C-alpha cells in the first residue's frame, strides 16, 4: 500500500442528532485513523466514488476525501 485508503465506512450519530459518516482510513504503516463527514460531504464523496452505499467506499484513496472537503 503506497497511500492511505478507506478501510470501511459506517453511519454514526452526531452529538446534535444528525447522522454522520464515519470513515476508517488505513495508513501506509498499517495503522487505522479516521475522519467523520457531515451528510452533505458524505453524499458528495459517494457521488465522486460512484458508491451506491457506504460499504462501496472501502478501498477508495484518501485524496477522494480531501477533494470533497476542500
Amino acid at each position, binding site marked *: 500500500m503506497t497511500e492511505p485508503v478507506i478501510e470501511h465506512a*459506517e*453511519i*454514526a*450519530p*452526531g*452529538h*446534535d*442528532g*444528525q*447522522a*454522520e*459518516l*464515519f470513515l*476508517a482510513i488505513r495508513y501506509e504503516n498499517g495503522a487505522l*485513523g*479516521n*475522519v*467523520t463527514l457531515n*451528510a452533505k460531504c*458524505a*453524499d458528495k464523496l*459517494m*457521488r465522486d466514488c460512484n458508491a*451506491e*452505499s*457506504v*460499504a462501496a467506499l472501502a478501498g477508495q484513496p484518501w485524496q477522494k476525501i480531501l477533494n470533497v472537503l476542500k
Partner: protein
Amino acid sequence: MYDLIICDGRIIDGSGLPAFVGDVAITGGIISQVGGRVTGPAASEIDARGQVIAPGFIDPHTHFDVQLLWDGQARPSLEHGVTTVVPGNCSLTLAPLKAEHRQRLVRMFQQIEEMPDAAFNGAFEWTWESFDGYLEAITRQLSINVAPLVGHSVIRLWVMNDDAQKRAATPDEITQMQDLLRQCLTAGAVGLSTSFVDVDHNLLPVPSRFAYLEEIDALGAVLGEFGRMLQVVPEFYNTDITIARVDQLAELSIKHQIPTTFSPLFDSSAMPDNVTRVLARVDEQFARGARVWPQVQTRPIDISFNFDMASLMFAATPAWYMVMRLPHDQKIDVLKNPEARAQLIEAAEPGGDISRFAELRVRDSQNPDLIGRRLGDLAQERQTTPANTMIDLSLEEDLQVHFLAANMGHEDPTRVGPIIARERVHVGASDAGAHIQSFATYGDTGYLFSEFVREGGYLSLEQAVKKLTSDTAQIWNLPNRGLLRPGQAADVVVFDPDTIARDEEHPVNDMPEQGMRYVRAAIGIDTVIVNGEVAYTHANGYTGSTSGVIATQPVQ
C-alpha cells in the same frame, strides 16, 4: 424546633458508604441531623418509609442559561431530583455580554439550544451586561441551585468584538480577557467553558475556537487563582484528537492547579476502542497529578432525519439512498410510483420483516397528534407497514415530517455500564436545556438507576448516588453540597429505589409563545428539597419555592 424531618428512610448519604435506616432533620436550610430517630418538634414531616433519602443530584453539563430567566425551576430537571445545575457549557453564556452583541449571541445559542426567537426576545428583559448582573436576574426566582460557567466565546466577543471570530488575541486583549474572567469568578462563576467543535448559525467556528494556546493558558492562570474548573468540548469520533485534548488539559491542570473536564466521551460501534484508549490516557494523567475528568452520559444517542434531505440514515440501503438523493419533486414522483415504492418496501422490509422502521418515531409534524408516535403503532392503525407509513407521512407533508431513530450510539449497556462505573468517569454530559426540538435531554439520572443499577447491576445504589452527588460537588468544588451531613446545604431527594427511572420522551409546548420541545417526566421521585424548602413533590408538583442559590458560595 426543626423546620423539616424526613422520617424513617433508607439514608444514602452520597459518600458511597452503605445505606442505613433513619431520619434526616433540616433547620434553616441546613441539614442538622442525619440518622437515628430525630426527636423534637418539627414544622413539617415527610414519611420516607421504603424510600431512599439522598443528597440532591447535580447536573454538570446543561444549557439552562436562557430558560432560567423565565423558569427558575429548570423544568423538568428539578422533578428528576436535580437540585443543582451547571449552565454555560460549550463556551456560550448570556454574560458578560455587551448590548450590541446580544442578537449575535442569540443566534449562536439557537444553533445549539434550538430555542425559538421568542425565548430570547420578549420572554425576559435584558437588564444586564455583566456576569453579576445576569446572576442577579436569575436569582430573583430560582427554585434550583445554579453553578454557572462563564463562556470563553463571550469573553472573547466582549474584548475583541468582530475580531473574536477572525484572529489571535493580542497580549493586551488577553490581559483584558483575564480581568473579565476574574470579575466573573469573583461574582460566582464556577469556571470557564470553551469549545473546540461548536459552530454559530453560519456554521462558522464559535469565537473560542480562534484562541491560541497562549490565550487558553492565560485564562487557565486566572482559573488557578480561584481553583476553578475549565470545561471543554472536544472533537467527536477521533480518539487520537481526544487524547491530544486530554494531554492539553492535563498540562493546564498541573500548571495552574485546576480541575478540568471534557464532555462528552461516548461509546460507539464505529470506534470500539475509543473509550478504552481515552480512559487509559486519563488514568496516566491522573497518576501525574492532573485532574482531567471525562464526562460520560448515561442515555444513548438518537438520530433525526426527514425525506427532504439525503440523510445518511439511508446510505447503507442503495435503493432508498438513490431516491433520497433525487431533487424534491422527482423524489415525490418516485415515492408515489407504485412500482418504485414496492421496490423500496422490499428493500426495507424483506420478506415482510417490518422490524427495521417499527421503532422509529415521528419527531416533528404539522399534525401534533403524530408527534412522538411509533411508526409500528401508526402502521397498525393504518393497516400497513412501518416503511409504507413513513413514506405516506412524508408525502402527506411535502417531505417535511421528521423521524427519530433512538439508540443509534452509546447504546450498549454492557459496554456503557462498566464505563460509567469507573472511578475516574464523571457522570454528566446530559446537555439539559439544549437540542430541545430534537430529543429530550432530561432524566439521565433516573436512567442511571433503572438501566445501570437495577437492570444491569454495574453500580450499587450507593455508588450511583455518589456519582451524582458528592463526586460532582467535589470535582466542581461546590462547597457544602453533595453529602447528607450536618452543616451541609439541605438539598435532598426522596425516591423509590425500585421504580426510579425516566418516563417516555414526549413533546410539550411550554416554551415561550408555545414553542415546542421534547421532555421526559420522572418516575419514582417523591420529594425534592432545595436548601431546606420543598421544591417538588410527586403528589402536588412544583411548589414555586424560591430557595435556589448560586451554588459556588459557601452555605451561610
